[in-house]
């Protein structure tokens, strides 16, 4: 896989300066996957710091070198070479929960109903969170755009 194609892969990108904290993203994610309006069942979480009035979100980066994949003893998490999306195969998962702590953002979580780990699956190409975000605080972008934005925003450097 050439570097160029990786850069063109689609990922999620969150800009806290546009977020309102409405949580439509979480509502949409939980309904799409579990047919429930349950914020605890969303694969992404938006946090609002009431003291400083700041927003932040924990969502899957579909990492280039995913720690969740590396940590899984059952090879139950696979990164698709072409799309770059990192998904759990519930048929292989034994529910050890290693991935839930290995991911630096704690994206995978243990689903008590199914006794397997679950995580963001990029909605198979049509991210519901981005679709229902009015200010486009969470949107679909290329990996290149995400690198640039996040480097500027979190590291305060240009890439």
């Amino acid at each position: 896989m050439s570097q160029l194609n990786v850069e063109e892969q689609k990922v999620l990108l969150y800009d806290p300066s546009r977020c309102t904290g409405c949580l439509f993203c979480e509502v949409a994610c939980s309904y799409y996957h579990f047919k429930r309006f349950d914020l605890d069942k969303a694969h992404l979480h938006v946090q609002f710091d009431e003291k400083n009035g700041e927003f932040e979100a924990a969502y899957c980066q579909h990492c280039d070198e995913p720690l969740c994949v590396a940590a899984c003893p059952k090879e139950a998490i696979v990164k698709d070479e072409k799309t770059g999306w990192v998904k759990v195969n519930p048929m292989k998962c034994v529910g050890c929960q290693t991935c839930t702590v290995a991911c630096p953002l704690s994206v995978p979580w243990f689903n008590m109903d199914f006794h397997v780990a679950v995580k963001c699956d990029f909605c198979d190409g049509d991210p519901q969170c981005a679709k229902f975000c009015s200010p486009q605080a969470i949107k679909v972008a290329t990996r290149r755009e995400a690198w640039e934005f996040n480097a500027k925003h979190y590291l305060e450097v240009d890439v």
Partner: protein
Amino acid sequence: MVKYALFLGCQIPMRLPSIEIASRRVFNILGLEAVDLLGYSCCPEPVVSRLLDETAALAVSARNLTLAEDLGLDMLTLCNGCYETLAEANEALKHDAERRSEVNTILRRYGREYAGKVDVKHIVEALYEDVGLNGIRKHVTKPLKIRAALHYGCHLYREYKTSDIMRKPNMMREIAMQTGVDMIDYGLERLCCGYPSMQANEEFSLKHRLLPKLSRMRSKGAEAIITICPACTIQFEIGQVMLRSYGFQFNMPCINLMELLALSFGVPHRDLHLELHRSPVQQLVQKVLGVS
């Protein structure tokens, strides 16, 4: 004269009729002709209905759009939610031929078809672009000396032709400023009122969305909240009552931008039936205008 097909939605005529009364008075004064859209249905609601059945939701929106198309008019919405639903559906129907034909197959069963000729406008766009700030200001005969905090509402940030999410919120702010209010900046303007998370988690919605907003507004000295969206208005009004059971006392009047305009244009407050509010709007107005 600028003419629109008026889409009132569900919440305003059913739960907040004072907004409809004020809007009609404001339209008359400003020379905006709003033709009633007879036979309209729910827009439908922008998130849950689309999640439940996207095609059905799109068909319902498309049917509403055909009613405006029959009149040869663009559609005007007073509610942020209606705006996003109808504008979103309109984008999909105008630019995605496959979706349009799928939806038209459904509509034809009811003798309708959408050609994609309608534009959807939010009321703040019509006020700002068609009437203009000068056109509004010249009708202000009773400037309102109220220290007020603005709440724009999440769906007002939806944009299609620009990435500037403050385009419509800034219009709302500037329009409100014409009425003479003393605008209080409280720093949490963008934060959601909590209405969308009410169904999923009531306590979270009240304590972690509504409460921080109200607390900050009050600490900055606001004596009223200005909204445009009926859903946000309901959250602010009923939410304040519900917060009492969690031990938080707030009783801040929540006035709609259209009511604010009507009052500043000198429409007698009795005509506006502000007593229909579930927050002390009537009391505020009596105090500010010095009437009883």
